[in-house]
C-alpha cells in the first residue's frame, strides 16, 4: 500500500485568522495528503508534541501576527531537541522578504510561502521534498 504524506497544519501564537490555514488544509487534502489540523492559538510546545505523536512528515505554520521570527525558530528548535529534526518545517503568512531570507538561511524553515502563492506551488513543493520511500 502506498505511503501517505502526513502534514500538520498549525496556527501558533495569538492571531485569530485561520481562513488561510483552512484553505491550505483543504488544498492538501484534495492533493491526497492526510492533514492534521490543530486549531487556533497553539504554543510551539503543543505543535511539536502533536507533530511527534501524529508522526507527520511536514509541519506547516500559518502566522499572520508578525511573530514569525520568534515562533518558527522555536518550533524548529523544539523538534530538534525532541529528536524529530527530520520533520520538515514550512511556513506561510505575511512575512517580509528580508525575514524569509533570514529564516531560510538560518535553517529555521525549509520554505516560506507568502500571500498570493498558488496552492499548486505548495502541493508540488511538498511532493518534491518529502521522501516517499
Amino acid at each position: 500500500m502506498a505511503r501517505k504524506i502526513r502534514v500538520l497544519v498549525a496556527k501558533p501564537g495569538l492571531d485569530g485568522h485561520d481562513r488561510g490555514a483552512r484553505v491550505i488544509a483543504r488544498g492538501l487534502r484534495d492533493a491526497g495528503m492526510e492533514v492534521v489540523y490543530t486549531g487556533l492559538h497553539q504554543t510551539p510546545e503543543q505543535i511539536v508534541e502533536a507533530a511527534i505523536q501524529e508522526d507527520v512528515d511536514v509541519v506547516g505554520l500559518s502566522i499572520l501576527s508578525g511573530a514569525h521570527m520568534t515562533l518558527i525558530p522555536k518550533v524548529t528548535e523544539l523538534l530538534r531537541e525532541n529528536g524529530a529534526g527530520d520533520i520538515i518545517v514550512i511556513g506561510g503568512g505575511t512575512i517580509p522578504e528580508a525575514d524569509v531570507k533570514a529564516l531560510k538561511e538560518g535553517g529555521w524553515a525549509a520554505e516560506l510561502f507568502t500571500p498570493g502563492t498558488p496552492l499548486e506551488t505548495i502541493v508540488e513543493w511538498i511532493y518534491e521534498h518529502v521522501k516517499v520511500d
Partner: protein
Amino acid sequence: MLDVNKLIQGDRRTAAKIITLIENDGEGKQELLSRIYPHTGRAHVIGVTGSPGAGKSSLTDELIKQARRHNFKVGVIAVDPTSPISGGALLGDRIRMQEHALDKGVFIRSMGTRGCLGGLARATKDVVKVLDAYGCQVIIIETVGVGQSELDIMHYADTTLVVLTPGAGDHIQTIKAGIMEIADIFIINKSDLGNTKRIVTDIEQMLDMSPRYKSSWRPPVIETSTVTKDGIENLWSLIRRHFESTRSSGELRETVRNRVCMELMEMVEDELRRHLWGYLNQNGSLNGLLDDLADRKADPYTESRKLVERFLNIKNKH
C-alpha cells in the same frame, strides 16, 4: 529505530513510528505485531460513536480529563473519513483535545479511514495494540461520524458509548436495527439544549422490550453536557462500572474470545486469498475462463468450486 522494547518503555516517537508503519502496511508489520502482541490485552478500550456533530470529540476530551484524574495513562485514536476522490483526509478531532498535548500521560493519534467503511480504519485494531503495549491503561477510540450501520467499533471496544443529541429522530428510529443495538451506555449529549425527556423515554422503552437485558448489563441512558459538565463524572463511573461488571460476570472474557476469533479468521482469509490469487494468476489460466464466463459458456458457481478443489489438490500433493 522501531524497537519494541522502546515502545514498551514508553518512548512516544517509537510508538508514533510503529503506528505509521502499520497504517502503511509497511515491511515487517506482521513480525512487529507478533512481538507486540504478548504485551497487550491489559487496557480498557472505550469506543465513542454517534452521528457527525453529536459531540464525540468534546466528550472524548472530557473522558481524557476523567481518566487522568484517576491517574490512568490514556491513548486516543481519533478516526476521520478519507476522501474517496483524492485519498486525502482532514483530521480535525484533535482540535478539541489540544489542551492535553503536553501531558505525557496522553497520546493522541488521528487516523484516516483509508477506504474502510465500518466507521474505523483497517489499522485501528492494531493501533490499539500498539497503545496498549505502550502502556495506556485506557484507550479511547473515536469513530467517524456514523449513520446507522457503521458498527465495527462493537468488535474492538470493551465498552461502547453511543452519543445522541436531543431531538435525534422519532420513536421509529429507536427500534431500528443497527447502531441502537450496540450501546453499552447511551449518552444524550448537549443536554444543556433541553428537550431530552422524549429521547430518553424512547430509548428506555426500547430497552424494556429487549429480553437480552433481563439477565445481563442493561445500558443506562445518561444525559451529559460538555458545556456545563453535567453528567460527565457520572458517565465516567458508569464506564468503569460496565468494565468491572462485564469482567466479573465473564461477559468480557467472551467478548475478547469472539474478538480474537474474528481477527484470526480475518488473517487466515487474507493468507489464503494471497496464496489462492498467486496460484490462479501464475500461468494466466484465468484469462480463458473469464472470456467463457463473460460469454456465458461457463458459470461462476461451478467454476469457483472447481478452482478451489484444484488448488487444494495441488496443496495436498506438496
